[in-house]
């Protein structure tokens, strides 16, 4: 990148940095597509093979209560192998209870969301053990990183829900859920995510969210205020925390995103089609369990099929196979009549050009496949092992660009610009026409990170690449951050609860 920019140049760069422009990206609808990549016959084929797989070969279920619930619907249970063979008709019936569309509620009603149809919502990266940025390097995640990531998430409208952006490794495991939920509820007013790491932690988090929303226990059960992701242990296994998570969330009427992690060539067959059959089967089993526990539980069909590099065994994301699998997953989810979740991952180790093009490919698959929720849409690096501050910003730019692409062309006659076209003579220009002047400020998408200046000006401003510019943006956003308003009684109750539970020793995760 050449020599470090001089102080004066850097300052000029900072001045040029626009204060973040907010457009209304709060409730997005995607009018494009969805593309189809499977014929209707092929969709039926995969669906029937998945049911056959569950019926003839079964799925291993490690939690006794979950096996019992499946048993109540006529599943054949082998108590030695813990294999549960699921009756196809019982599965179809359970699936029929799942709503095709549902709302999720926030402590700020402006952040409420609908999942279903053409709705789409973006969630930042979730789950990495590491945080990384240009200033502080790559390190194990801390609570301070989690708080900063939550604040960045809160600051951009195009991120619709908060996620478990980075694991706060410096907080003892028994207190971690309390600190994460507290930050999620105070640094943001968006719908929070809760990990299903055993019943005691889930109960704590539900209580904190209930207090933050100022609702009664009954009101909390009547409407979803939070969500979690359940990953199956592919192939064909639901372990104890997953089953418990499904039961806990379904019982409380909260949102479950059932996501098999089917890496073709590793935990799934080495063809995308084979991986899709496995994904579909595991998703059906998890969704059915939720519906058996509590018919009508809001669920999403989760898809995370990608492939490994067959030479090294490394997982790959944003590949052509990943894109095709996403679009196919959308078709399979629509076959079940369910909203569905996709992702925006990359395998890149740096927030570089590979990180950008792989994420673009992933998002392309998600959005052209009609995904209703896109998880890991901002900040994901290293196949999910690091949360990158700079990548979060460049990804926000990409998400905003996609969001803008969803807006229809203006219908008004004036937009056809007849007067301007008549005014300007052939070979002239439109800079000063009334049509242009009227639209000057808002005619086009105004970028967050992209620098469209010419090379000379760009070089004069320090030759900062997009990642370096993103660094300045997140620092500015954090510097200027203010917590969203919070009713003081609710905040007090929330704080009191968290402090009491810490005094009581918190709750250990169950695995």
């Amino acid at each position, binding site marked *: 990148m050449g020599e470090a920019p001089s102080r004066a140049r850097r300052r000029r760069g900072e001045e040029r940095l626009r204060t973040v422009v907010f457009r209304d990206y709060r409730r997005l609808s995607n009018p494009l597509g969805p593309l189809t990549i499977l014929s209707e016959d092929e969709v039926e084929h995969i669906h029937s093979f998945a049911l056959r797989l569950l019926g003839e070969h079964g799925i291993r279920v490690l939690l006794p209560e979950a096996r019992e619930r499946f048993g109540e619907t006529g599943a054949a249970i082998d108590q030695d192998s813990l294999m549960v063979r699921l009756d196809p008709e019982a599965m179809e019936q359970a699936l029929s209870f799942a709503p095709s569309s549902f709302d999720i509620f926030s402590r700020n009603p402006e952040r409420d969301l609908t999942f279903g149809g053409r709705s789409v919502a973006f969630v930042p990266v979730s789950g990495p053990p590491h945080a990384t940025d240009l200033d502080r390097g790559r390190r194990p995640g801390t609570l301070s990183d989690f708080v900063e990531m939550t604040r960045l998430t809160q600051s951009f409208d195009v991120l619709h829900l908060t996620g478990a952006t980075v694991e706060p490794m410096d907080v003892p495991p028994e207190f971690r859920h309390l600190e994460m939920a507290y930050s999620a509820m105070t640094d943001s007013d968006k719908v929070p995510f809760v990990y299903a790491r055993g019943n005691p932690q889930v109960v704590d988090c539900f209580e904190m969210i209930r207090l933050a929303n100022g609702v009664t226990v009954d009101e909390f059960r009547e409407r979803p205020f939070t969500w979690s992701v359940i990953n199956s242990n592919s*192939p064909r296994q639901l372990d104890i925390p997953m089953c418990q998570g499904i039961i806990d969330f379904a019982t409380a009427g909260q949102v479950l995103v059932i996501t098999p992690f089917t890496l073709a060539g590793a935990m799934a067959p080495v063809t995308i089609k084979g991986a899709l059959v496995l994904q579909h089967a595991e998703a059906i089993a998890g969704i059915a369990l939720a519906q058996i526990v509590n018919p009508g539980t809001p669920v999403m069909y989760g898809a995370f099929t990608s492939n490994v590099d067959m030479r090294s065994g490394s997982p790959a994301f944003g590949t052509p196979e990943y894109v095709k699998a996403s679009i196919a997953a959308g078709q399979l989810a629509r076959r079940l009549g369910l909203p569905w979740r996709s992702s925006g991952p990359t395998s890149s*180790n740096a927030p570089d050009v590979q990180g950008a093009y792989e994420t673009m490919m992933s998002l392309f698959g998600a959005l052209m496949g009609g995904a209703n929720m896109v998880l890991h849409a901002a900040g994901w690096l290293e196949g999910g092992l690091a949360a990158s501050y700079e990548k979060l910003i460049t990804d926000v730019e990409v998400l905003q660009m996609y969001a803008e692409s969803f807006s229809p062309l203006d219908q008004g006659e004036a937009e056809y610009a007849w007067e301007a076209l008549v005014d300007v003579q052939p070979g002239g220009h439109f800079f000063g026409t009334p049509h242009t002047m009227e*639209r000057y400020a808002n005619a*086009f998408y*105004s970028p967050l990170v992209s620098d469209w200046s010419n*090379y000379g000006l*760009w070089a004069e401003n320090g030759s900062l690449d997009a990642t370096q510019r993103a660094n300045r943006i997140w620092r500015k956003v954090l510097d200027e951050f203010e917590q969203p308003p919070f009713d003081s009684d609710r905040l007090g109750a929330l704080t009191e609860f968290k402090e009491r539970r810490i005094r009581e020793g918190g709750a250990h995760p169950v695995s």
Partner: protein
Amino acid sequence: MPREGSTREGRRASRGGGGIHQQAWRRVTNPYGNTAVLSEDQLETIHHASLRILSEIGMDFLHPEALAVLGDAGADVESGTQRVRFDPALVMEHVSKAPSTFTLHARNPEHNLTVGGNHVNFCSVASAPNSSSFENGRRPGNFEDYQNFLRLGQAFNVVHAFGGYPVEPVDLPPSTRHLDALAAFVTLSDKVYHAYSLGRGRILDALEIVRIGRGINREQLATEPSLFTIINTSSPLRLDGPMIEGLTEMARMNQVVVITPFTLAGAMAPASLAGALVQQNAEALAGLAFTQMVKPGAPVMYGGFTSNVDMKSGAPAFGTPEYTRAAMAGGQLARRYGIPYRSSNATAGNAVDAQAAYEAEMSLWGAVLGGANLVMHGAGWMEGGLVASFEKFVIDVEILQMMAEFLVPIKVDATEMALDAIAEVGPGGHFFGAAHTLERYETAFYAPIVSNWQNFENWQLAGGMTADRRAEQVYKQVLSDFEPPPLDGGVAAELADFVARRTTEGGVPA
């Protein structure tokens, strides 16, 4: 064993680019259909508004020959000016004569291109005045860089054609530059290429070079489109003289004319997407109709290059949400007239960074799902077209390969669904050693040329190189391994004689 049509062929490691594993040469088609951003009503509104522009405002044609052709065909040439107004029916009558699909012939018949339908052809970067590489920095274009870009374009199979000079070889004298530059297409490549419409003389030389390169006579050339030219209108609503001369000679010889208005909303076009599209469509229709007046049935393409300027600075922007929607809308308009469509892979980025990648992907997304049959500037373009970058070329090749692989449909059958393998591998197990896996080990998935999928620790141990640096290694290896495609000795001699003679004659005075 089940096969997926061209999939396996495409995945078979090919060494066309020296030691680099890449996709084999193949024709890329889009089986998934096109994305529509305009409703049928909006499409018709734009269609009628653009015809109204041509009928009420008209367009300037800056060449007396063109005015004569237009007048003879029944257009209304305003006397004493260069303004031409068109009756809507006249425009549509002539536009309807254009073929909906045609073949572009390369000197190597395996590299012939189908243009039309759901075919997608990718071109290299074209027309950059500067080149750049990490090693030698940013510099004015020169013939050495020019030839190296030709070598890259020839070596990478996913680059189907050259959409012009990748970089302008400004160290060559202007009067004979086209002779050396065009001859290099023949000697360093056997793919389809483009000639600039910068006046009659240069296009006539280009037609002769493409004829010699293919080893055919003029009659055969006139039945086999083998060369294409981009005609940019001088927006708004003007077509310049040198472009008109090039268009005319190309059409007369039945060669491919791509009419591409450069309609930057907010500068050369109104500051709304709809307005810019109306103007793009008016200029494209006028150019297409004029081409058909010169020679009915001549192969033409509808080019879309509508983007917007940054309204705060006036800087042109590419790969924006507006650009992407304009690209998709352009495809709808081209299909409205049954004419093959050209789009681009453009970015305003100044570095081989995240911005360059995401803007390129936004552009390609618009092009591929918008139904583009020819994607100009597919590999290597930066800085809004002011630079051809060696590293970005390789990055774009990776992206194009991924797009091409994405466009190979999934086929569902029992074997590929691997039910036996799923049953064989128990719950919680893995598929690494399954028979189904071992059979497909090498060709199962897309193999990247730049992307690195190592974990962080291994990546760091190996030097922690970012993708732009890895791309540098790739292009250098491809160049060092490069061997030009075979060229018939007689053709080479005839070409050398022609270039020598025309150079002695002074080429085409600037």
